[in-house]
């Protein structure tokens, strides 16, 4: 199973970045909604679109997919 994104769909809302439990463990300040202070996280919003930084860290829990309002991030 692989984490995938579709930037065409992405609204850049960043809900997935906040919801991702792996992101939270790598960069707890994520929770404030101000983005991570490191690019070590699984995914981040860059220039208004979601971008995968370390998809290999994804543990496939499916939380990002559940929260994404527009099907811009999913496991396949």
């Amino acid at each position: 199973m692989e984490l995938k994104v579709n930037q065409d769909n992405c609204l850049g809302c960043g809900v997935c970045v906040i919801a991702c439990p792996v992101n939270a463990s790598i960069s707890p300040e994520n929770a404030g909604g101000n983005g991570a202070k490191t690019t070590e996280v699984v995914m981040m919003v860059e220039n208004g679109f979601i971008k995968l930084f370390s998809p290999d860290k994804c543990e496939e829990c499916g939380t990002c997919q559940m929260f994404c309002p527009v099907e811009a991030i999913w496991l396949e």
Partner: protein
Amino acid sequence: MIKNTKEIKGKDFDVTRSADEVRNLSFKNHICIGCGICESTCPVGAIDLGDVATNARAKVDVYFSGHDKIAQNINEPVDLQKVNVNEDKCVLCGMCSGLCPVDALVLTIDGVPIAEIDEYPSYNVYTIIDDDKCLLCQKCQNACPREAITIKRQLPNRVDLVTGEIEVNEEECINCGVCSELCPAEAIVVDPTTGQESIVIDKDKCVYCLVCKKVCPVNAIKAVCRSCSYGEYDLDPELAKVKGSAIIEDALCVRCGWCEGVCPADAVEVKKPFEGTLVVDQDKCGTCGACVDLCPCNALAFPISEGPGSRMEHVIASEEYCIKCGACANICPNEAITVTRTAIDNTPINSITWNKAFDALKN
């Protein structure tokens, strides 16, 4: 050379080896709890645990533990296969079947499941509802996270429980309809139409509450108390009993113990396969809820907020209802859950390898 065959039926499948004896390993996806014991046990590495987390979360009806707002984001629910067996590697030894805590994988030899063959081990587990003690309250049926319990009950006729009956003196009745409007059982029908006034009492519905008698402005309703006039004559306690029985679908039951926990009559006894502990590291938990959605026992839940500003635990874990299957610990993205098995209750076996496989479940 003998070759295994695989027959796939939707999410279920059968792996078969036909020789002098026919060995068949069957997998039932709806029974599987995704614990991964089979994957770690298989001596030939033929089993792969599928995408159990996304699988559990794809079921819209239990989506994210009932958060409807998130469920709305899911357009196409997917039901993935939780376990796959590579038929080229599988040797049909049955270890996965023997160690599967819920009989999702079952090896049969010449049609006989290994659980019924003395040589093979099985867990000493059971769920028994004592029909003599059972009050048929259906609490267990409602609590069961696997919908494995059905309480079939027949209620007595209400008429047999009513202690008296009413009669109306139609000569005195003015068909005002007050009694009909107040009657909680809708047992009185009054037609106030001028010229064709009538009052009808349905004695099957009447509960002898006497509201009508008390409210009648002309005292047209007479009450006949059965207890007073006939003593206990009319009230046969046998007729007042709720009859029925509890049916447990054994294949679905995971021995979580909810039924035992909620039973007000101590009628249920559950024996679990493992003893051990379930610990959540609240600091590591990212509250993604994958464990909550996957847990077959509803032993993990998000706490309900006590009000604004209250600080809650991230996830609450109930050891009482946990079967220590380890599914949650397996899928937690942050390794925040630790499941420890300290004792396993299985029927004795002579095989050293099989005993080792059981011991490997302890940690």
